[in-house]
């Protein structure tokens, strides 16, 4: 693919050594643009948020069921907003004038965080805003996104593009609820996982053996599963409502840890699906970067020819990685039914698979990075839900757009740059 891109010019050694002292023209432009973005955020805080609020914002820090109740955080709105606007103005100003260079991406991210904080203070002015319930919801909502991203990472690290994550989620959600209703939640969880694995098998057969365009297969998996589950819902589940009524996994508090204020309810009083997500993020990170299997998988994703010449079976490695990825995707689907409402509705995953894809890219094909991205996306989801509840006059649609816009910015390399595995999406033909 390299020939279609305009390759970045390789700088001679002296130039790259000099760069640490004086900035290149491109860096200066970038510093100016990001500086202006931050100054604009400061201006929004001053012009839009400040004039029409007063009083205090109350942030609840505890869930009602907790044994240790923290006092709510009371913030005087006007001074707090002035302070945050000043921080934004300072960051933007210094970025505009001299630039933070290597730290610029981090600073920009921090500035967005400060801006969101200002938005929350403004939204909560004169109201009760339970921060803790929003943080708990963030971790729950991040779960299917992080697992979906993990599914994509497993496939793509071996060189198989998976845009069928959405279909795998939906398939897992469907069989999960049916088997869960008939035979109990654990069987449902198993069925969801196997469904994802089966869909991944289709991806593997067509991608590895038949060498069909992987983007087409992923796309087909999405519409096939959407069509099939919608058809089966209207033909079968509507007539047999008892097949669409699964038990929901309850939150399991972990002794002692769940009593810690703030992080207790967030991380230690969730369902087993959420715990499984934490375990899987850790396991996949370890497996990919610390085991022989992981080394082989990554080498097949980066340079299948070299791996092949060293005796690694490219198709076997790809089959395994894709099927593992599919199983994680199917398991993630169970969150939508067995982890929340216990029933299936047509298309209930609502594009979360694509947010997972976005988290994978934003996290630069790394499980920990993808988990971080999923937390941010989960936060924006629960924040927009909270804003809708508080009747804040901010169109929540724009918060919903954030994951997609951020992904475009990242793939375009406007801020930072995420690089996919080198052989991602290329079928391998043994010579």
């Amino acid at each position, binding site marked *: 693919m390299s020939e279609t891109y305009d390759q970045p010019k390789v700088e001679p050694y002296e130039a790259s050594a000099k760069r640490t002292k004086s900035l290149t023209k491109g860096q200066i432009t970038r510093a100016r643009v990001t500086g202006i973005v931050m100054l604009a955020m400061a201006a929004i805080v001053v012009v839009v948020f400040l004039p029409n609020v007063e009083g205090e914002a109350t942030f609840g820090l505890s869930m009602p069921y907790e044994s240790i109740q923290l006092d709510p955080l009371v913030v005087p709105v006007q001074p707090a907003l002035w302070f945050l606007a000043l921080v934004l103005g300072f960051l933007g100003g210094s970025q505009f004038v001299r630039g933070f260079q290597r730290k610029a991406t981090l600073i920009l991210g921090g500035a967005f965080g400060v801006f969101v904080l200002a938005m929350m203070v403004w939204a909560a002015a004169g109201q009760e805003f339970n921060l803790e319930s929003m943080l708990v919801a963030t971790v729950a909502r991040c779960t299917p996104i992080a697992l979906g991203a993990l599914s994509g990472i497993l496939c793509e690290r071996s060189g198989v593009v998976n845009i069928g994550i959405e279909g795998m989620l939906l398939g897992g959600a469907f069989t999960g609820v049916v088997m869960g209703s008939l035979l109990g939640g654990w069987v449902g969880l198993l069925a969801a996982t196997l469904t994802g694995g089966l869909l991944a098998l289709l991806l593997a057969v067509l991608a590895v053996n038949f060498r069909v365009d992987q*983007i087409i297969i992923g796309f087909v998996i999405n519409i096939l599963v959407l069509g099939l589950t919608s*058809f089966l819902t209207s033909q079968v589940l509507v007539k047999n409502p008892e097949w669409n009524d699964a038990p929901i996994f309850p939150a399991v508090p972990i002794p002692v840890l769940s009593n810690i204020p703030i992080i207790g309810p967030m991380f230690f009083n969730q369902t087993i699906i959420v715990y499984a997500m934490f375990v899987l993020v850790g396991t996949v990170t370890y497996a990919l970067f610390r085991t022989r299997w992981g080394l082989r998988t990554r080498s097949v994703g980066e340079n299948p020819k070299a791996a092949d010449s060293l005796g690694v079976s490219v198709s076997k490695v790809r089959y395994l990685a894709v099927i593992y990825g599919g199983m994680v995707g199917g398991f993630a689907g169970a969150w939508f039914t067995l982890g929340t409402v216990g029933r299936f509705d047509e298309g209930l995953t609502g594009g979360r698979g694509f947010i997972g894809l976005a988290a994978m890219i934003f996290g630069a094909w790394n499980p920990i990075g993808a988990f971080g991205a999923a937390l941010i996306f989960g936060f924006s989801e629960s924040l927009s839900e909270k804003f809708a509840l508080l009747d804040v006059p901010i169109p929540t649609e724009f918060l919903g757009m954030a994951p997609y816009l951020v992904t475009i910015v990242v793939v375009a390399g406007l801020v930072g740059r995420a690089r996919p595995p080198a052989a991602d999406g290329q079928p391998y033909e043994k010579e």
Partner: protein
Amino acid sequence: MSITSPDGKITIEPDDGPGASFFRRLTQATDWKSGFVIPLLAVFTALVIGAIIIMLTGSSFTEMIDAYLALLKGSVGSLRAISVTLTEATPLILTGLSVAIAFRAGLFNIGGEGQLLIGGMSAVLVGFSITGLPWFVHLPLAIAAGITGGALWGFIPGFLKAKTGAHEVIVTIMLNYVAYRLVDFLLKTTLFQREGRNDPISKNIMDSAQMPALLQWLDPAMKVNIGLFLALAAAGFVWWLLFRTNTGFEFRAVGANPSAARYAGMSVTKVYILVMMIAGGLAGLAGTGQILGVLDRASPGFNAGLGFDGIAVALLARSNPIGVVLAALLFGGLNAGGQYMQANADVGIDLISVIQALIIIFVAAPALISAIYRVKSNASATQISQGWGS
């Protein structure tokens, strides 16, 4: 095999790299086996599997036959059915062309949904906000607005691909979701929202911006309109552009071998931006036709998956503009028949999406069809994009 410019002066040899089979696929479009036999067998096999699915969900053999008869009757069984088929096929021709022309330049446009939405929203805005114009001014103005809106939405992935190398599949997927949210937002603004309504629905377009219906003098329910002729004209235009102009030759050359095209002095940057703008404009025209010819207003989800169906149409047609028209008629017929089947045979319309998905699998992997029917075919598996590995 190589491709040659209309004046015969430049010849581009195909890339032997991972994208090579894409070029082979293009040159085989005239081969009757891979062009007709395989697609027909793919459709047939998908219908057979559809029948099995119907019977597995508890219908008897006769009920299954009844469902398929309803499918046939609802698509071509009467003048009214044919009108529905043509109405359904009209946007599919346009979104199919949108995907096909991008395929020819080696780009995968998954963003038809977003381009269609933005195009439709631009058309509806011009359609309801301007008053007092005669139809022969207002209608072309609204159509132009729709095409422009779609082209602008297509410009973004084309520009980013050309300038930064951002993979068009990722950018177009993300832009679809941005467009969904944007439409949800716009339909609740005072500019778009109908007076006195709380739900997201736009004002109705003026009569002067409506696309005239063709057969309403026979039966007021027949919605087939001049949008059909626009779509057919667009197919002719895309064929002419691709095979009779230098610009089209550049598209195909970049699709076959970008580095050879660049070496021959073509601007790959220009091709990527231009082809995505044309693709976006075609999808925008599809949305415009839905608004001005069928719906008269915009509401969330008026894209109705048409942008995605366009991918299936383009694949079945092997990116040939004439094939796109035929494939769109087939899919339009399936959609029309599916509605009739749902109403009269108690088999849900979602079966049609399953059948369409199966058709794509079999078309994209002709080896499956060859294996089932023992047809010899030299068609290779469809390989268009090259993944996002660098």
